[in-house]
């Protein structure tokens, strides 16, 4: 494997920033619609006819999930040539991927605004658009396999994670459209079970993309590639992979499928978060103080994700126990778990990857925006904790109401204080993440010469300043890349 410093050019100069900018735009829009949706909990008439919850929820969910996988894809495009030791195989394909992703999301958002649904939970758009999503992933998959040419016998763990993330996205996306076949559509038990199965594993697939990026970043920061080849890393990867394949069933305890479907998932349970917590915990302890201070924001984001892993782990274990799941399922405790996972874990880890890349490429610009970024991260995590507690509180009130056979309207009235807290803290999350988003967009837009080592080749991309204009500073701030 060649060191990355010798790669010319590893990836088109503007490609990764384009993916990051697109993903951050998704996040901003997703947050806005999520905030409107949360306000509709406390103000039922708010935009009830013009932009009802029927539209705001899918807009929020689609855009936020788009943030997750688009940011992960951008990070993979950056890491891929560095992991492979050769330039990206099909740069034009990567741009095609970006354009298709933008086109698909524009059509889907348009469908939601105009009330054209016809799909299913989390994929509410007309089913034909599922094909367009799959098509947009094809250039990504081609670039991944053609650039990395993975040899799994002696590969680092992130090769496996990324492979699983890509392959299982296609598998689970296809599976989520099995309802188009009568064998599934006409049998609601089968239909719902398979839908939970597909969606549960699909979440696992993009988690694998994120975990692969995190492992790459961790091994580079530590300067120890063996971290990603160790037995421990693979042990945790296989446990996580097993969870991806089989643990979806804890969502289906209420579905009258065969009992062994529930038993399998209960046995497998939610151990995936333990794996990551263990990895991150060991990583942080082993870092030297100098390394910690150098990449403080990236390390801080990983540490915050670490905390959310532990908190979510507690909830995950609780809601995986059938006796408790009977009460918690269908309450906002499940939402708390989802929010903790997507904002607390996924978003923090993705932001860690983004800041790592920006530290490599635009260290001076990143330093300029460091203050607002750190404040935004702190505000987001503080507000998320309140948000999370409010959701758990609302869930507990609902459980109590259900045990007393209260009507849905009465339960909603009793939940109102928690919903106000949830909407208020949601607004603060919007403010905090907006600070982060605009800070990162500012860094992405900043004019800064790139280190000579990663200077682009003519015709593939160009920097706005001479390639080595700031090379001394960048080189002094950035440790050797692999």
């Amino acid at each position, binding site marked *: 494997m060649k060191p990355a410093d010798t790669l010319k050019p590893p990836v088109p100069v503007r490609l990764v920033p384009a993916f990051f900018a697109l993903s951050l735009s998704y996040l901003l829009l997703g947050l806005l619609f999520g905030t409107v949706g949360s306000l509709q909990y406390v103000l039922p008439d708010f935009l009830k006819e013009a932009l009802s919850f029927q539209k705001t929820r899918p807009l929020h969910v689609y855009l936020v999930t788009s943030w997750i996988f688009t940011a992960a894809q951008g990070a993979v495009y950056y890491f891929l040539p560095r992991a492979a030791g050769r330039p990206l195989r099909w740069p034009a394909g990567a741009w095609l991927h970006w354009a298709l992703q933008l086109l698909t999301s524009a059509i889907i958002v348009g469908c939601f605004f105009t009330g054209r649904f016809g799909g299913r939970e989390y994929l509410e758009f007309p089913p034909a658009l599922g094909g367009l999503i799959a098509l947009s992933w094809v250039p990504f998959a081609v670039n991944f396999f053609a650039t990395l040419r993975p040899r799994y016998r002696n590969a680092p763990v992130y090769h496996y994670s990324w492979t699983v993330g890509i392959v299982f996205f296609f598998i689970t996306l296809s599976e989520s459209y099995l309802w188009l076949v009568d064998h599934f559509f006409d049998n609601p*038990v089968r239909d719902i079970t398979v839908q939970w199965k597909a969606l549960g594993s699909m979440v696992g697939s993009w988690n694998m993309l994120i975990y692969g990026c995190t492992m790459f970043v961790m091994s580079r920061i530590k300067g120890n590639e063996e971290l990603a080849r160790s037995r421990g890393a693979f042990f945790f990867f296989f446990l996580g992979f097993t969870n991806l394949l089989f643990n979806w069933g804890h969502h289906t305890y209420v579905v009258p499928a065969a009992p062994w479907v529930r038993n399998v998932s209960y046995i497998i349970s939610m151990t995936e978060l333990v794996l990551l917590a263990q990895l991150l915990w060991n990583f942080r302890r082993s870092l030297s103080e100098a390394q910690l201070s150098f990449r403080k924001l990236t390390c801080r984001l990983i540490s915050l994700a670490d905390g959310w892993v532990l908190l979510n782990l507690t909830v995950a274990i609780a809601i995986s126990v059938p006796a408790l799941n009977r009460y918690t399922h269908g309450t906002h405790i499940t939402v708390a778990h989802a929010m903790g996972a997507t904002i607390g874990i996924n978003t923090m880890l993705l932001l860690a990857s983004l800041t790592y890349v920006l530290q490599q490429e635009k260290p001076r610009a990143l330093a300029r925006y460091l203050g607002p970024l750190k404040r935004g991260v702190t505000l987001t995590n503080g507000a998320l904790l309140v948000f999370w507690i409010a959701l758990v509180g609302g869930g507990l009130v609902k459980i109590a109401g259900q045990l007393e056979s209260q009507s849905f309207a009465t339960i909603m009235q009793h939940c109102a204080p928690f919903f106000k807290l949830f909407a208020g803290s949601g607004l603060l999350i919007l403010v905090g993440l907006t600070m982060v988003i605009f800070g990162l967009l500012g860094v992405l837009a900043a004019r800064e010469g790139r280190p000579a080592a990663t200077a682009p080749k003519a015709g593939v991309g160009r920097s706005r300043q001479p390639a080595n204009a700031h090379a001394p500073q960048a080189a002094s701030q950035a440790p050797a890349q692999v």
Partner: protein
Amino acid sequence: MTRFRIFLTLIGAYLLYSGFVFTKGTETAMKPAPHPTELAMAGKRIFQDYNCAACHQVYGLGGYLGPDLTTAWSDPKRGPRYVEALIRSGGSRMPNFQFTDSQVKELVAYLAFIDATAAHETR
């Protein structure tokens, strides 16, 4: 090599397990559940076309702004008439979707069908 074998074994187990879930695992529980009618399946399509799952759950899948509808049809506090009235005119949080008479019938038929499959285990 061992790692790759474990990897392939897990994928093989997943494929086998998926096959069972698609057939046996979701078949036995349906006996003697009712056969879907055209009316109920038309109601299911309307449920998707209007994205009712944004607010309502069926078997735990869906949003939380509105009540779970899995057993709404047989619920003594709700029942067919209550369900039909809400579908026709909406509620404090639910918009009035201006459903036609036939759409209302199809949606009610779908909820009755879902209810029958859900109640099967407890009967």
